[in-house]
């Protein structure tokens, strides 16, 4: 088992000769994205506590994975996120209010996948990985240079669809990057109960594809490792499995109580490896980040938070009769009858 690739250590120091380090410009811009992703996570969690959002699975502590997954993609590439990957979707350019619409309960997906090339956030585990393979295989057949970034967590690697997706992608040499954010817990169940493998990336061997481990709190290393995988996919080299070593700092969701299954000192150790602190230490140490920039990034974070709050505080407009509108391209006669029934009920409600 190779240790996870790291370019900047948790104190902000460069590991090795630094020859593969992304440019300072890329890292500063990436740091800005980390600040925004952290702000998104924290404002969304606050909105849950205020009752504005039903639920928010936070990626607090995993922001480097979120940002890197989005930033290594080119225009036209596809992202297949899970429910915990809202920050990656926003980093990809989707309006956070549209992303959070699902968690407020407006509709099951608030953005247009055909425009954003971001698939709906998957709630069933690992099922979306196969859709990613299909989109990638279709692109390959059409001769398009599209790459697909497919996200999942450590728990999802136990699912059958994880196996089927990696096997299909390898057999068809589909241009997919399977990016596993190993945050050590599937709700309450620790990694040791998911697998006896020394590393999740080792599973790649069984599919005949490269497997890489990367420090999931090191934006520089993530940018390089995921970038290499994207390049390989785009140039016809087929899929790669990338495992990021990271940690879910917060609860699974607000309905969870992590004190029942993990010790606070374990969490504290990972807080010290925070992806923002690490990159900030590196950039300030290198003289690449000054107070003025930091203030500007923080201000951008506040603007994002204000936009999210305003969007989530607005009363959602949901037409109950829309329930029947999209089940089929043309509603069946039975759905038309049911829509008429609900419409009549609503009219009665309105007049009483």
């Amino acid at each position, binding site marked *: 088992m190779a240790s996870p690739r790291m370019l900047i250590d948790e104190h902000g120091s460069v590991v090795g000769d630094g020859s593969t380090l992304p440019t300072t410009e890329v890292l500063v811009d990436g740091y800005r994205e980390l600040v925004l992703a952290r702000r998104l996570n924290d404002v969304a969690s606050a909105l849950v506590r205020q009752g504005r959002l039903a639920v928010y699975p936070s990626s607090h502590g995993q922001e480097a994975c979120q940002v890197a997954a989005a930033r290594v993609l080119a225009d036209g590439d596809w992202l297949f996120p899970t429910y915990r990957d809202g920050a990656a979707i926003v980093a990809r350019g989707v309006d956070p209010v549209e992303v959070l619409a699902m968690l407020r309960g407006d509709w099951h997906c608030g953005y247009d996948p055909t425009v954003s090339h971001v698939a709906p956030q998957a709630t069933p585990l690992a099922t979306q990985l196969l859709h990613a393979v299909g989109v990638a295989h279709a692109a390959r057949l059409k001769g398009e240079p599209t790459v697909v970034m497919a996200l999942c967590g450590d728990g999802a690697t136990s699912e059958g669809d994880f196996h089927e997706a990696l096997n299909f992608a390898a057999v068809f040499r589909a241009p997919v990057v399977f990016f596993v954010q190993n945050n050590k817990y599937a709700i309450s169940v620790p990694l040791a109960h998911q697998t006896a493998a020394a590393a999740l990336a080792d599973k790649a061997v069984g599919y005949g594809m490269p497997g890489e481990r990367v420090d999931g709190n090191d934006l520089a290393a993530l940018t390089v490792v995921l970038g290499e995988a994207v390049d390989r996919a785009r140039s016809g080299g087929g899929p790669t499995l990338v495992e990021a070593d990271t940690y879910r700092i917060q609860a699974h969701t607000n309905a969870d109580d992590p004190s029942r299954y993990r010790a606070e000192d374990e969490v504290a150790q990972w807080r010290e490896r925070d992806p923002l602190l690490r990159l900030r230490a590196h950039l300030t140490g290198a003289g690449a980040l000054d107070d003025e920039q930091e203030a500007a990034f923080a201000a951008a974070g506040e603007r994002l938070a204000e936009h999210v709050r305003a969007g989530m505080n607005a009363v959602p407009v949901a037409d109950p009769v829309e329930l029947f509108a999209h*089940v089929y391209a043309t509603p069946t006669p039975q759905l038309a009858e049911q829509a008429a029934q609900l419409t009549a009920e609503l009219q009665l409600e309105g007049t009483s």
Partner: protein
Amino acid sequence: MTIMAERPTVAPASSAVTMTMAQALNAALRDAMTADPTVVMFGEDVGPLGGVFRVTDGLTARFGADRCFDTPLAESGIVGMAIGMAMNGFRPVVEMQFDAFAYPAFEQIASHVAKFGNRTRGRVRLPMVIRIPYAGGIGGVEHHCDSSEAYYAHTPGLTVVAPATGADAYGLLRRAIEYPDPVVFLEPKKLYFSKSEIDTAVDVPPIGRAVVRREGRDATLIAYGPSVPVALAAAEQAATEGRDLAVVDLRSIVPFDDETVMAAVRRTGRAVVVAEAPGFASVASEIAARVSERCFHQLAAPVRRVTGFDVPYPPPALERHHLPGVDRVLDAVDDLQWDLS
């Protein structure tokens, strides 16, 4: 906003030729792939072998391995990949090798195939066809004979079609491939090798439309897929005994053609539903309930169901006791309170 709008089906001009249902399905795939380069066919053994029932015979040779190909042996993978291809410009047709072999794909079908259009407010429709050789009557082993239609029919967002004739096998498959939504296409195995005269240039009614296969005055038999020939044989037999039975072939389970079914039942005042699947919580039960709700005042007797027993599919030596046959259908017809009319 009733039946799906009529859409033109492009079929090459030809006169009627004798072919099996399997050959009709093969011709439909061939013609669809010729007409539309985004139609692709994949599954297990569908490539050089041509499928275990030879429905995809010759397609790889004709269209190349990018258009008709074998996949690794994993049904969830097949359906999941088809979803992605449908998201990205293709019209995939996938084959589940047998009814019970489709169950590993059920999560993909129930959680995604059925729901994607709704989830995305109609922005991502999935034009794909899941072909499933289904039902019994072939002396097959336990997992090759299931009538699994209720699982799909119960899942909002799926369109569920079951042809009973060679002409419908061709015409409905062409329509299913052109359909904007995902279609579960149930192919009655026991009819695969029955021959009929088919003119592929003659269009069939659209998905969502039932057809009266036989007019009759006394009672209406309602059937679909493999049970339609049983119902027609029962009607033939009844005619020799002085009873004139109508037969309705649903063709499409979802959307369900209430209009045609109810009109046929009202003309006779009596109804028997015939289906192979176990009767409890079945499509036959849904039909019986709908007919009872909508035709109650025109009914001279309770609606009867003639279905498979509520048992796992029997071994080949015993399946004839399980499947609804002509005698069991006629017994049910006899039971329709004739002395009260």
